[in-house]
């Protein structure tokens, strides 16, 4: 019995990993196409029909590239960093329930596990910056740590709002609690909470307008400046996987997860569409806004988002206490 379950888990884990890598590879194409359209370009078009084979061509090309390890770098740290960066970014997908009963492990501490593991990416990031032994990379890594730990707090507070409203840490339970009314539709509370979640998410992913750790004009490519070939590809893969994973979390926490009209098997499609909408929103912001200064970035986190999300959390708690846990304590 247990071996049958283990085999099932084995197959499921294998399928999940491949699905994550395939989706993330194609999301890079989607972002490039989306950015191109926003700038009145066509984007990748030559490889395959409408450029659909571009990610595969990119992967093959990056595999054939020379893998340069700088002579002054700390070799072990430098080589291990992409691995340490990628694993947590893939592991977060393990707890996401894609539809009722369709997920690897819908843990009873799902939200906590997701946020804890996704915060681990910072270790790989700092290893990359430190191991490169390059001034740009090191500066970028310090800035990244500074920014990510600043924005993790409002991010977690915003993610706690649905937890208080739903009364559980199980992602599936939070989705079921939204049957009837999605959390984002709660007057004022839901919208502000979702907005805070989005801003903190963009900042925690280090994307424009919060990308001071990269800032092409001053730090070149930031912490990944010394990486080339497949190691660079792994870092990019991990970053996109993290964005997609957090988009799924946002869709589950605020946008009603797999709930939607139609039969139950449409749940996976509904959830993916909502996650895609969150991702496109983030991408839209990326290609519309300009980078802001370091002190402004930290000011937004500590002086605005942190008090705001804490107050929202208390308001959510007051709402739940006032309604007396009517939806079954």
């Amino acid at each position, binding site marked *: 019995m247990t071996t049958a379950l283990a085999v099932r888990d084995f197959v499921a884990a294998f399928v999940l990993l491949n699905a994550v890598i395939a989706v993330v590879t194609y999301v890079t194409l989607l972002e490039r196409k989306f950015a191109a359209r926003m700038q009145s370009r066509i984007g990748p078009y030559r490889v395959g029909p409408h450029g659909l084979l571009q990610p595969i061509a990119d992967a093959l090309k990056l595999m054939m590239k020379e*893998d340069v390890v700088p002579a002054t770098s700390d070799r072990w740290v430098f080589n291990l960093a992409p691995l340490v960066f990628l694993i947590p970014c893939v592991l977060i997908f393990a707890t996401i329930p894609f539809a009722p009963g369709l997920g690897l*492990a819908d843990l009873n501490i799902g939200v906590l596990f997701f946020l804890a593991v996704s915060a681990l990416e910072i270790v790989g990031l700092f290893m990359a910056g430190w191991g490169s032994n390059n001034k740009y990379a090191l500066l970028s890594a310090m800035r990244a740590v500074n920014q990510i730990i600043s924005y993790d707090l409002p991010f977690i507070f915003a993610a706690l709002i649905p937890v208080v409203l739903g009364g559980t840490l199980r992602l599936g339970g939070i989705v079921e609690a939204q049957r009837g009314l999605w959390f984002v539709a709660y007057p004022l509370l839901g919208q502000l909470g979702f907005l805070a979640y989005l801003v903190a998410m963009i900042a925690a992913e280090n994307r424009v307008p919060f990308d001071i750790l990269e800032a092409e004009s001053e730090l070149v490519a930031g912490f990944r400046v010394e990486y080339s070939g497949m190691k660079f590809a792994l870092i990019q893969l991990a970053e996109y996987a993290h964005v997609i994973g957090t988009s799924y979390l946002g869709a589950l926490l605020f946008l009603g997860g797999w709930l939607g009209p139609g039969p139950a098997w449409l749940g996976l499609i509904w959830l993916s569409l909502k996650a895609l909408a969150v991702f496109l929103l983030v991408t839209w912001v990326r290609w519309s806004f300009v980078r802001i200064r370091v002190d402004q970035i930290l000011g937004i986190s500590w002086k605005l988002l942190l008090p705001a999300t804490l107050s929202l959390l208390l308001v959510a708690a007051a709402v739940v206490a006032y309604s007396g846990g009517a939806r079954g304590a």
Partner: protein
Amino acid sequence: MESLALLMVFGFAAAVAGALLYIPSLIAPRRETPIKLEPFECGKDPVALPEGRFAIKFATTAIFFIIVDIELMFLWPWAVLYRTLGWFGFAEMLVFLGILMLGFLYIWRKGGLEWD
């Protein structure tokens, strides 16, 4: 069983990433020159390696993070058990957050949140 599944994802991710890191060493070219192996600094010769000293502001951010992070540790169980606690839990959290926010306001007034 759930932790076993998580462990499997971990193992698969590590295996795939390891394989992807290993494949280029088989097929990629390898032509090293001393200049190529220097740390990249936009074409200048690197004068010195980074010696590991940073602005003190990074350290203060880390300390502030720990303050609020401890607060967060109490918020997790509180958020889960909130339905059974009701108004009692609300008042308790208000007191707890109030004390911590006093410290936060102190940091703010002292200029700890200014980065310029």
